[in-house]
């Protein structure tokens, strides 16, 4: 667990440092994920403890959004005043984006004649 923690933090630290030093428009942790990917590719495999720790982290990914979500309390007045516009925009745009992106994916996949063997059905 310690080794996994060190690896994750080192990758993030490298990502954040480079983003700041070079002012790249990429979030630090995303660059950190690329470093992690490179590390795994060089090592040709995922260490057991890293696999376990990352599985635990990702299994509880949505918990990590709770503190920022609770910040809704700071904007209660505006959200109330513009509730209809904002909620309609969020629901409409999210649904539209899911539909457009998934159909574009499948459409391009069909144009290419299918890029993957059939997976199990949902």
């Amino acid at each position: 667990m310690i080794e996994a923690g060190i690896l994750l933090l080192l990758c993030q630290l490298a990502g954040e440092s480079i983003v700041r030093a070079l002012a790249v428009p990429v979030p630090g942790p995303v660059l950190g994920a690329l470093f992690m990917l490179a590390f795994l590719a060089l090592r040709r495999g995922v260490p057991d403890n890293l696999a376990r720790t990352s599985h635990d982290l990702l299994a509880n990914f949505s918990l990590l959004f709770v503190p920022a979500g609770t910040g809704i309390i700071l904007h209660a007045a505006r959200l109330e005043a513009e509730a209809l516009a904002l909620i309609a925009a969020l629901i409409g745009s999210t649904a539209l984006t899911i539909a457009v992106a998934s159909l574009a994916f499948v459409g391009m996949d069909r144009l290419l004649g299918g890029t993957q063997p059939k997976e199990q059905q949902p």
Partner: protein
Amino acid sequence: MNPGLGQLWVYLQADPLGWLTATLIAYWIGVRAQRAAGGRPSVNPVAIAVVLLVALLAATGTPYQTYFEGAQFVHFLLGPATVALAIPLYENWRAVKRSLVPMVAALLAGTVTAVTSAVAIAWALGASAESLVSIAPKSVTTPVAMGIAEKLGGIPSLTAVLVILTGIIGAIIATPLLNALGLKDWRARGFAVGVAAHGLGTARAFQVNDLAGTFAGIGMALNALATAILVPVLWHW
């Protein structure tokens, strides 16, 4: 209240430990509620946790800043968890490599749709200018979205809230919507949810299928990049 209890309350309310514990318990209640509902996506653990915590903060008159001193330890883990997305990405690398072209098509279509449709709907319904800027990056993961909003003169903390509402909405509607569209490709399903609803959509995708979760993580990361580049361009144009 007797003096001992009063002191205990003062301690709990001011100490980070109390609010950190409250955050975990609120989320745990949300998870149990979703399980009790047979895993139905409409019973969303994050939404339940936020409602409980907001009620608790309001009832105790606690400022958000005090709450965040405790909750920041959970918030901090967003960074390492994002790095951890590299592990399923590596494990599914062969499927990812073969899907590059469909991913680029879905990314371009998704990023443009996410930004323009959100701003257009909000504008048509009379949202204020500040809200329009703040809602533009709503499909992007929190820290990046806040950065984009700030650069364009929006309100970063409002953007954070809109981002998380988007994530909750995406996690709730993704499964029924994609089923209604008749899509059976886990890669397409996951990728679209990651583009539209960032980390919360990704968390939901991992709940359903590992390959979908992996593609959602990629969709989230690519959309953060694409939106960071696209929104300022669209805005000035």
